[in-house]
C-alpha cells in the first residue's frame, strides 16, 4: 500500500516538474501594440531546424505558410487574420539565409542568420487592429506550417514557391489540419486587451 502511494507521489512530482519545464521552455507568442498596429515576436520559436533545415542545406528553397489571427471574446471568433507565404533559401557559399515573402506582396531580405530570418518572417505578420476596442479581450495565435517536399513535387517547385499562390489558397490550406508528418507550430496567447498591451509596451 505504502509502495503504491510512493509511486503516485513520484508521478505527481514528475508531472509537476514536467509542466514547469514545459512552461519555462515553451515556444511563446509575445504581442506588442504600437498605436493600432499589433506586432508579434516568438523568441523561442525556431522553425529553421530539423527536416526543413536539412532541405535548406541541400540548396532547396523551403516554403513556410504563416497565419496570424486575433479573436475576440473567445478563440474561435476571429476578427483579424493575416496569412503569408515565406520562401527561405540557404546560400551554400555565404552560409546565410534569404527570405522572400511571396504572398500577399513580394518582399525580400537576405544575408540573414537563421534567427534573423525567423524574426523577419514573424515581424512581417504584424497587423492593423483599427476598430478594435482598447478593453476588448483578445486571443492571438500564430500558426506556421512548412510546405512539405511531397507538396512541392506534386505541384512543381516553381508553382509552390512562386508569388502565384493566392491568399484564398493559403486560407484554404490553413482551414485543413496539418499533417502529422508536416513540421508545424502553433502559438497562442490571451485573453489580453490592447490597453494592457499598450501599458506593457
Amino acid at each position, binding site marked *: 500500500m505504502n509502495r503504491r502511494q510512493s509511486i503516485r507521489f513520484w508521478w505527481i512530482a514528475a508531472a509537476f516538474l514536467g509542466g514547469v519545464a514545459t512552461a519555462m521552455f515553451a515556444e511563446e507568442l509575445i504581442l506588442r501594440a504600437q498605436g493600432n498596429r499589433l506586432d508579434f515576436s516568438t523568441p523561442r520559436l525556431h522553425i529553421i531546424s530539423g527536416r526543413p533545415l536539412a532541405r535548406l542545406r*541541400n*540548396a*532547396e*528553397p523551403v516554403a513556410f505558410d504563416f497565419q496570424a489571427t486575433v479573436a475576440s471574446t473567445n478563440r474561435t471568433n476571429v476578427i483579424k487574420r493575416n496569412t503569408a507565404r515565406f*520562401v527561405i*533559401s*540557404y*546560400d*551554400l*557559399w*555565404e552560409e546565410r539565409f*534569404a527570405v*522572400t515573402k*511571396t504572398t500577399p506582396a*513580394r518582399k*525580400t531580405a*537576405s544575408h540573414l542568420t537563421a534567427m534573423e530570418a525567423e524574426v523577419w518572417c514573424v515581424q512581417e505578420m504584424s497587423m492593423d487592429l483599427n476598430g478594435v476596442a482598447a478593453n476588448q479581450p483578445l486571443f492571438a495565435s500564430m500558426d506556421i506550417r512548412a510546405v512539405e517536399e511531397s507538396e512541392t*513535387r506534386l505541384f*512543381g*517547385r*516553381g508553382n509552390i*514557391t*512562386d508569388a502565384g499562390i493566392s491568399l484564398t489558397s493559403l486560407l484554404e490550406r490553413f482551414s485543413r489540419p496539418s499533417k502529422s508528418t508536416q513540421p508545424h507550430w502553433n502559438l497562442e496567447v490571451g485573453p489580453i486587451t490592447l490597453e494592457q498591451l499598450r501599458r506593457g509596451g
Partner: protein
Amino acid sequence: MNKLFPLTVMIMATSAWATGQDDLPHADLPQADPALNVNARYLIDRVVLKRDVWSSRSVSTPLRQEIDQVVGQNLDQSMLESLATRLQKELHVPKVSVHVAKGHAPDRVTVTFEAGEKEQGFDLDIDRFLYHSKQGWTGEGGASVKFHGNKLTFGMVSDADRLMERYAGIQAGFERKNVGTERVGLRFRFNNYHEQWNRTTLETALPGELYRTRQHFIPEVTIRLAEPLELSAGVDFARYQTFLPNPVALGPGARTESSNAAVSTLRYRQRWDSGSDYKQELAASYGVRSGTGFLESDAIFTRQYTDAQYKMEHGHQTVKVSYLSGRITGTAPMFERLVLGNSETLRGWNKFDVNPMGATRVVHGSIDYSYHAFMMFYDTGSSWNVSEDPEQKQSLGVGLQAGGFQVAVGFPIKTGRANPVVYVGMNF
C-alpha cells in the same frame, strides 16, 4: 571569371558517373529565380550519378545527355527534380534523391543524383512462377544478402520450361560487382539439380544421353566495356550422372561425366528516351560455350547463341520484336541443347512435339503487341538437327497481363487438330 574544370569521372563506392565542363557558359541559359533560391545564381560545375551497384538497368543515352547538359547551367531545383523523377523511372528504383553541395570553385555547385536501393540488406525474390498446361509448374525464387559490395544468393528452382528436362534443386552464388574497378565484377555460382524426363524423351534418348543429377560450378568475370556493352567470361564446370533411360537398350549404365566449358557472353543494352512519348529499348547478346579437352571435358562441343529484343512503348501500347538463333557443333549434353516450344518460344507448341531431344540448330522470331492489359503474339521458328531439314512452325496467341502477371493462350498453326497451350504466371 570562368575557371577551368577538367572533365572528371568519379569512381564512387557505388557505380557512378560524373561530368564536368571546361568552360562554363554564362549567357543564354534559363535562369531560376534567385529571389526564391539564392543558390540559383550559382553554376553547376559537375553532376554525379551514384547508383546501386546491383542495379542491372542503365540510364538511356538521351537522359544521360540531358543530365550532362546541366553542367554549366544555373542551379534550378525544379529541373533537377524533373531529371530525378525520370531517373527513378528508368532505373526502376524507389527513390532518386538530389544532393547539392559546394563545388570545386567559388560560386559553383556540384549536383549528385543518388539512386537509392539499399546497399546492404536482405531480400526475398520470386524470380519466376509459371503454369504451362503441357509442362506443369515452374518456380524459381531465392534470398539474397548484400554486404559491403558483396552479394550472397541462395535459391531453389523447379523448372520444366527452359530445357528438355525438369530440373529441380538449389542455386547458390557469390557476386562482387566491383573488383578494384567498377568495370570489373566477379561471380561464382553453384547449382545442384535433380532431373526428371518426359516419356517421349526417355523413349527417344540413346544410352548415356540422359542424367539423373547434375552439378555446376561457374566462376565468371564480367567486364563492363562501355555503358551499354558488357562482356562476361568464365568456365562452367559441370558434372552429371547418366543412367540407362530404356531398360531394353544396350549401353553403359550409370556413370559420372563432365562437361567443362569455357563460356563467354557479350551483352548490349540500350534505351531511348524516357522524356519522349516513345520509349525504346534494345537488348542483344551473343554467347559461346565451348566444351574442350583442355578443361578435361567428356563432352566436346561448341554452342553459339544469339538473341535480340527490341521494345517500343507509346502510351498504353507496346510492341516487342524478338529474335534468337543458335548452333551447336560436336556432342553437347542435353542441358546445352536448343529448345523451342516453351513459354518464350513457339508459344502454343509443345516442345516435346517440336523436338523431343532438343536440337542443334534453332532460329526463332516473335512479335508481341499489347494495349493496356490485352496482349497478342505471333511466333515463328524452326529447330532441327544436322541431319534433318528445318521445318518452319508458327503460333498465335492472346492474353492479359498486368504488373508482371500474365495469362495467355497460344495456338499452334498447323493442319489437323491443334491443342492450345495455356500459360499463367509471372516474370516469364
